[in-house]
Each structure stands twice: as structure tokens, then as C-alpha cells.
């Protein structure tokens, strides 16, 4: 069923692109915040369970994210396209003293694939402001690592999890065009319906990943003349 929908989606998009005369390809780079509520709770539960004092030295900080989109101008105001974004964040619970060290790391990477729909709300010469409503799926991979070194004993374990969830991202984009080039800024909010993590063997957990948070950055791209 999902495969058929995907094929239908691509046929629909390809049709639009074939009809459209004005295309653009844009690369984006920026940063964002990440909710990760469940994994933050997982970390605090772990800190209460571990029999020695620990500190959360890193908790899902804003990191560099990049992506891009390929869009077609369907009407004077309306744009439709495909959008991709890469995010990575994580956390660390650490402890150390003369007797040894302990680290509990979570490393998350998220690939967002979606449909971009934009509406031009303002234009003055080459300066444009677009409002976008982007929808899609985010596929998350999470690596959970635990390392304990005490005296001459070392215990290391690593587990892989993955999740899939839907997202919606209202975004405002201001850009300036010059000949075939385009550059600008964007600001948005990423709403992620949390996807439950599951192991490589398909065993589901009760912990979900949530990439929800603000997004901002710069964009640079190329487009056809008269875009």
C-alpha cells in the first residue's frame, strides 16, 4: 500500500514538474532545536538508577543541519517540490574519577523526506517572501552506547534503534534573486509526530523520538530565468 502511494506521489510530482516551466534547486544549511522528550527522560531515569553520581554533559544541542529542495513554480504564487533535510543530535551522561570512567551516549540522525508547498506572500523586484507548509516522513537512526572502564575492566555495549514518524513544518522563507542565483534566510518550526523506536530485530519500544523544534538557516540555489 505504501509503495503504491509512493509511486502515485512521484508520478503526480513528476507530472507537475514536467508541466512547470520554472524550476529551482536550493541547498539549505542551518540549525535547530530538538525536543527528544522521551530520551531526555530516559537519561534522567538512567542517572537515578546508576549507583554513582553522573552528569548530563550534553543534551540534544542545536547542531548544524543541511538539506535542500527541488521545486517547481506551478502558478505565479504557488510552488511545489520535494524537500530533504538531515539532522543529527544526541546526548551524553558521564562520570569519571580516579577509579574509572562511565559514558552513556545517544547519537541520533534523522533524514526527512517531504513534499514542499510554498505560497508567495510578498514580492518586491527580486526580493521575495514565501510561506511554506512542508509535510513528510522522518526516518531516525539511533545508536545507544554505554562504556564503563573500572580499573583493568572494560565493559562496552552498543545498540541500534530506528523509528519512522511524520512531520509538518511551517516555514517562512525570504530570498533575493540575481540572474540564475538565489540566496536567503528561512525560519520555521518542525512538528514531529513522535515515532516509536524499534530494534534491528523489529522489537518495538515505548520510547519515541521527537525532532520537534525551531529551524533556521540560510539558503542558496539556482533557478531558471524569470523565476
Amino acid at each position, binding site marked *: 500500500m505504501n509503495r503504491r502511494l509512493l509511486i502515485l506521489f512521484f508520478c503526480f510530482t513528476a507530472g507537475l514538474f514536467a508541466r512547470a516551466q520554472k524550476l529551482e534547486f536550493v541547498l539549505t544549511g542551518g540549525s535547530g532545536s530538538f525536543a527528544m522528550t522521551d530520551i531526555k527522560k530516559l537519561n534522567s531515569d538512567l542517572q537515578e538508577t546508576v549507583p554513582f553520581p553522573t552528569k548530563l554533559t550534553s543534551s540534544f544541542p542545536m547542531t548544524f543541519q543541511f538539506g535542500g529542495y527541488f521545486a517547481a513554480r506551478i502558478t505565479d504564487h504557488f510552488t511545489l517540490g520535494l524537500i530533504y533535510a538531515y539532522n543529527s543530535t544526541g546526548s551524553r551522561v558521564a562520570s569519571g574519577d*580516579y577509579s574509572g570512567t562511565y559514558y552513556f551516549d545517544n547519537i541520533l540522525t534523522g533524514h526527512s523526506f517531504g513534499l514542499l508547498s510554498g505560497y508567495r506572500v510578498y514580492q518586491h523586484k527580486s526580493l521575495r517572501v514565501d510561506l511554506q507548509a512542508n509535510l513528510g516522513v522522518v526516518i531516525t537512526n539511533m545508536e545507544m552506547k554505554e562504556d564503563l572502564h573500572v580499573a583493568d575492566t572494560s565493559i562496552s555495549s552498543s545498540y541500534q534503534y530506528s523509528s519512522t514518524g511524520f512531520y509538518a513544518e511551517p516555514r517562512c522563507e525570504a530570498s533575493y534573486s540575481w540572474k540564475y542565483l538565489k540566496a536567503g534566510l528561512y525560519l520555521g518550526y518542525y512538528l514531529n509526530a513522535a515515532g516509536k523506536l524499534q530494534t534491528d530485530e523489529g522489537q518495538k519500544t515505548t520510547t519515541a523520538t521527537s525532532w520537534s523544534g525551531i529551524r533556521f538557516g540560510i539558503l542558496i540555489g539556482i533557478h531558471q530565468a524569470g523565476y
Partner: protein
Amino acid sequence: MHFPGRNILLVLFSLLILVSCEYKPKGDYYRDLSITPPTGVTITIPGSNDTLVSTYGHSYMVSVGCANHSVLFYRVYINDVQKDFQKVKSNDFFIEPSAYTGSGHIYRMTIEVGINTGSGSIGDNLGTEGYLFRREFILVAAVRNTDN
């Protein structure tokens, strides 16, 4: 001109960007702890001195005085041969010397106790570090009635 390696280079470049942008956990939390070795540790069997007359089936309480430290385990040796090992959660525990020996003989019994460092370190909390203290007793194993 078509350059077949270009696509491969593009994919490799993209992968390189992905890897370089992957979050890398940061931060350390080092606690500068100091260890103070326990002083005045005592291993006693209340009501007995260095010589213990053991009768069959009789248990003796061993009391370890170690202030704020905790006893992790004890070992009992008879003539330098380990006869018992137990993890404990109290500074007082019971041993049954007749279980380790025959009757009608004199033995050298050594009680060895492991005490935590109390430093609060990772090793201390996991019970992988500590101090060993031992005390020797002369054990006189009384003749059992069944031996007569």
C-alpha cells in the same frame, strides 16, 4: 565528455558530509576524589579472645569495627586454605568454625574482610575496590561426642 567517476565522487563527498555532520557526544564529568584509608579497624568475636574453642554446630558472631566503612565480604581460611567466602551487607556476620574442620585438633583460622573505600568513586560504588583486613585466631576444635 562523460566522466564515470564523477557520480562516485559525488556520492563519496555526500557521505563525507553526512559523517562529518553526525553529532559527536562531548563532555566529561571528573570528580576529584580522595581516599582516606580506614584506621582502627577491628575484627572481633565477642566473648572470645585470640583462641576460640569450637564446638560442633555452634555459630559465632564476627563483628567488624570500621567506622563509616562497610564490609563487602569475608573469607575464612583454615591453615591458609580458604574454606568460606560470603558477600555481606552488614558489619556483623556469623561463622560456624566446626563446618570447616574436623574435631579434636588445633587449627590456625584466619578471618579476612573486604571493606569499601567509602570514597564514593565508581569503583567504590560497584564494589570493585576496597581494603583487606585480616585477623588470625587459634581454633581449638572440641572433640565431638560421636568421636568417643
